[in-house]
């Protein structure tokens, strides 16, 4: 099965100058944990996730969360997120984007998801335009 047969044709995304507050709002409303970042031509240029935002707000916070014995206060995180709210997503997005192409095979997609510990992968056409997203569950759903 190829990527275009598996993908969700959902182009929910943000642009380079979208403020962080808007990104969080879209994630909350849409229920997505990460969003592709597009340029003016619709070409995929980055990814922003909840994890990226938390890491940017408080470096080391995510690592602290792994320890049940120490849960830091949320005040600092909240304060820092408010400071970041008006800043463009381009400042915090990851640009080393891992994406698949429409004709890529399911095995290759599964391999990419597993190796990179990703929850979802953007799918792009030959010109790099976003055309869909494959979540781990999309693949599992079709495999079962």
């Amino acid at each position: 099965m190829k990527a275009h047969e598996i993908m969700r044709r959902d182009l929910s995304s943000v642009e380079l100058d979208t403020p962080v507050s808007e990104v969080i709002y879209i994630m909350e409303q849409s229920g997505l944990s990460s969003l592709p970042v597009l340029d003016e031509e619709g070409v995929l240029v980055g990814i922003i996730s909840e994890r990226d935002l938390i890491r940017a707000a408080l470096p080391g916070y995510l690592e602290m969360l792994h320890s049940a014995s120490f849960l830091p206060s949320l005040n600092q995180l909240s304060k820092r997120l408010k400071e970041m709210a008006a800043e463009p997503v381009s400042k915090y997005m990851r640009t080393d984007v891992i994406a698949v192409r429409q004709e890529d095979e399911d095995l290759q997609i599964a391999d990419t998801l597993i190796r990179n510990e990703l929850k979802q992968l953007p799918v792009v056409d030959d010109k790099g335009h976003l055309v869909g997203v494959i979540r781990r569950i999309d693949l599992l759903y079709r495999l079962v």
Partner: protein
Amino acid sequence: MILTVTLNPTLDKFYWVDRLPLSLERVEEEILIRAKKSASSAGGKGINVSIFLACMGVDTVAMGFLAGHTGQIILRDVLARGVTANFVWIEGENRTNVTIIERGKEYHPVKIHEEGPPVPARAVEMFLRKYRRMLKRAEYVVLAGALPPGIPTGFYRELVGLANEAGVRGVVHAGLGPLREAMQAKPYFIKPDVREEAEVGGLPARTEEEIIQAGKHAVKQGVEICLISHHVTGDILVTPQGVWDLEARVPLSRYKNLVGADDALVAGVLYRLVEGDSVLDAVRFGMAAAIASAEVEPKLCLVKAAIEQEMQQVVVHRREGG
């Protein structure tokens, strides 16, 4: 690719009942109506057009505003039908439109339509950026349906203008005010419905003669296809090449669900235009798609063979030109 814009999407909810009370006004106690059957699906004119096109194998992207839990349901249904979705999320809750269909009176359904959530200015700005980007990939853009609170009446005019600048053919399938405004920007294809509002582009359209004159006026303004619905089974087509009557020879008793039939008409025309058909052949197919949709309980008939079968029922009569 065909882009569709549904600014006020809906979750269409259908109930089929054996009998409705003769008059709701006379009843003094609460009324319980048991539905024999129910169904729901993503809707709004543009979304219906996209669903039809995707089913016919046409690449289509649906745009508009989604909100809340209902928005999630709409998105899920749109994606499941093979439509690409590119919506802007707003606060609130998308509307639910209820249609109650009584056995034996299928062509007179009872409808309850909600208003929809208000759209904030920031969301409109986000939408316009997405819209401009998507126009670069589109061949046609369909601007369809009601405007939600917060959207000015002239919004479709702006969207048609942007489509023209991008070399994309604009299709307007909307009510009186938004259509009248949009016509100023010279859309390629309009589909007024004078059964609801007897006017096209500011001109009266009560009689067939008035309808034709209004259609010709639209064509003079730059519209290439003006397809006017004037009764359940009849449309008038006005183009720069001439005027045609299209009549579906189908008794009303065969209709099971009229909701979405006019969207199937627009979608059918576009499907055949992108396939390379002439305007007249495309409109014949569109009308057949509308009849086929009205004859089934689901909102849209998505079986191509059934639509092609209905083409035999569509009679075309040339009035002028051609």
